[in-house]
């Protein structure tokens, strides 16, 4: 079987097996019913024959004679469908219903038991015939007695029976197929549940499949959970490696900066300047690589959901400690239960980069709003700074650029942000804020369905 669907496979197999069983059952029923009808015919004909047999005798030349004839009126009516005939090699007598026709005489009628057969009889009918030999006198000469009845009626009965039986068996087949479909659906239900939970796992790498699955599915579920654990551990290791790499490279860079300061102090300002620019380049390249690694990790880690409000407050608490952030008002208009489809570490990174950027340009205030409308989650960050011209907005979204290339800061600004947003299936746009500053809008559409909702 080449089909890839277990359901189709089971249905096809079950359907064929049931069909085979029903065909065999139909054949058996047909055979039994036919035998039953034949037996009744034989009994009926035998009863009529008993009226003739005692009355049979032979004349001198060996022709059969009958002293009395069977009483059934149909023997007297020509072509009535009920016939008899007694024959010897010398001659024959027959019922009037045969008229001028005769029944073919079987070549060898051995015993005295009735033997039955079907023959094409007179008047274009198919006949059901019983025949036996009797010896009416002591001479030992044999008379072949045959009684026949029209087979058409029983053939019609058989035909009707077959049709009705076939119909009944077909209905039975449909019923059994329905039952098989229900059973297959019940049998596959645990797999569907596994599939639904896998969807949840794909959205949220922290989720695991539940452990209350049937015994047959449990090993699969355990294997998937083990795989997810291993993957989470790998990701965690990768995250740590990225952090370790940062530490192990940045500390030597800081040491080099110390050397450069010493060089400048000892009267080699050109060498010091060259070193400084090299250090800056190495640092920028390192940051870019780390940002890319973080974006890739975010893509692998799956998506949140993470409650927005506590993360936003934590990031703002950091910014409020800084010189610039301390002079700003951060307005947070975020529903307490709202979650975004981003893992906690990535959401922290995302908000950090966006809010730091907003704080860098804001004059007095930065406003964070988030909500859900028309099946879309929207995060909006406004500042009241100088804002940005349309062409600059388009340029700012290009890969590797910062919103403010000249400003201080170690992040890659929007490059990190767009990486993280894309990894979580969102879309980022820039617009003008109500107060004239820059507005960053991030939208997550509900195509990710309910996965970002906080679990109860």
């Amino acid at each position, binding site marked *: 079987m080449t089909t890839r669907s277990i359901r189709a496979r089971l249905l096809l197999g079950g359907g064929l097996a049931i069909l085979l069983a029903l065909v065999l059952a139909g054949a058996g029923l047909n055979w039994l019913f036919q035998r039953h009808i034949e037996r009744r015919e034989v009994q009926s004909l035998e009863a009529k024959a008993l009226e003739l047999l005692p009355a049979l005798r032979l004349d001198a030349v060996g022709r059969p004679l009958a002293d009395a004839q069977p009483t059934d009126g149909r023997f007297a009516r020509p072509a009535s469908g009920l016939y008899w005939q007694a024959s010897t090699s010398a001659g024959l007598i027959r019922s009037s219903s045969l008229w001028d026709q005769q029944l073919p005489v079987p070549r060898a009628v051995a015993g005295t038991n009735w033997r039955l057969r079907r023959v094409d009889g007179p008047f274009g009918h198919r006949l059901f015939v019983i025949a036996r030999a009797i010896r009416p006198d002591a001479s030992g000469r044999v008379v072949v007695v045959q009684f026949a009845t029209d087979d058409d009626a029983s053939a019609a009965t058989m035909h009707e029976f077959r049709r009705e039986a076939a119909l009944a068996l077909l209905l039975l087949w449909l019923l059994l197929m329905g039952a098989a479909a229900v059973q297959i659906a019940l049998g596959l239900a645990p797999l569907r549940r596994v599939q639904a939970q896998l969807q949840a796992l794909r959205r949220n790498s922290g989720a695991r499949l539940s452990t209350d699955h049937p015994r047959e599915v449990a090993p699969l579920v355990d294997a998937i959970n083990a795989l997810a654990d291993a993957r989470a551990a790998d990701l965690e290791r990768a995250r740590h490696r990225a952090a370790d790499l940062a*530490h192990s490279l940045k500390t030597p860079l800081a040491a080099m900066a110390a050397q450069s300061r010493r060089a400048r102090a000892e009267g080699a300002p050109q060498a010091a300047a060259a070193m400084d620019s090299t250090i800056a380049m190495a640092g920028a390249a390192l940051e870019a690589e780390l940002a890319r690694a973080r974006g890739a990790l975010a893509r692998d880690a799956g998506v949140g959901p993470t409650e927005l409000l506590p993360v936003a407050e934590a990031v703002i608490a950091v910014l409020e400690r800084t010189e610039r952030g301390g002079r700003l008002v951060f307005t947070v208009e975020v529903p307490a239960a709202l979650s975004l489809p981003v893992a906690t570490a990535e959401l922290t990174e995302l908000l950090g980069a966006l809010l730091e950027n907003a704080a860098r340009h804001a004059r007095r205030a930065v406003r964070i709003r988030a909500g859900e409308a028309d099946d879309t989650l929207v995060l909006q960050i406004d500042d009241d700074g100088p804002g940005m011209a349309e062409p600059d907005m388009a340029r700012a979204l290009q890969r590797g650029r910062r919103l403010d290339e000249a400003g201080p800061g170690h992040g890659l600004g929007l490059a990190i942000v767009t990486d993280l947003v894309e990894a979580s299936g969102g879309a980022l746009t820039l617009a003008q804020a109500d107060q004239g500053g820059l507005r960053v809008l991030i939208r997550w559409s509900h195509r990710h369905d309910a996965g970002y909702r906080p679990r109860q």
Partner: protein
Amino acid sequence: MRVLLVEDEPAVGADLAAALGDAGFVVEWVRDGAEAAFLGDTEDYAAAVLDLGLPGLDGLSVLRGWREGGRSFPVLVLTARADWTEKVIGIEAGADDYLAKPFAMGELIARLRGLMRRVAGHLSATVTIGRLRLDTTRMCAFVDDRSVRLSALEYRFLEVLAHQPGRPVAVHAIAEQIYGTADSGDTNAIEALVTRLRRKIGSELVETRRGLGYLLPDGSA
């Protein structure tokens, strides 16, 4: 001005020590977390520069140890990781500012001076107005002895009102004092500031007098 420098990398540490010395600080340089924890607990420093990646006891644990022990000197955290998760953890552990490596020496000195300026100049450590208590050295507020972390702006707003408890201060006067200058757009900013502040310390602790401004109820009323 004694500054505790905690940095395990010799070249960076030597450079930092020299630069801080040039800037006029008295530097004590330790390379080990356990020693830093001990010194911070027992000596009085004007500030500390703390590297988070330390052998022995890591920087975050050192910092938490100081804060749990009630040490309130400002701490500037140095970190090789530039990610926000670590910044958040660092601030929550009690850091006052952070700087990612590699950093410009001039910026470090400026930030450190900024931190020390915030602390200096306040002779009286606390001001109490009703249920509200302001800690002028750590720039934080206590409401019924519950600690609330404030931004510099929020703290200055409260400080302005605290000079005249029970009496309203006009919005433009507040804007002038906390921003240095004031223009018509600042009214919205102050309003947003009050909204945020009320969420942190409780709405009844900052009252609005329509047309007059804001006031801190002095508790006697």
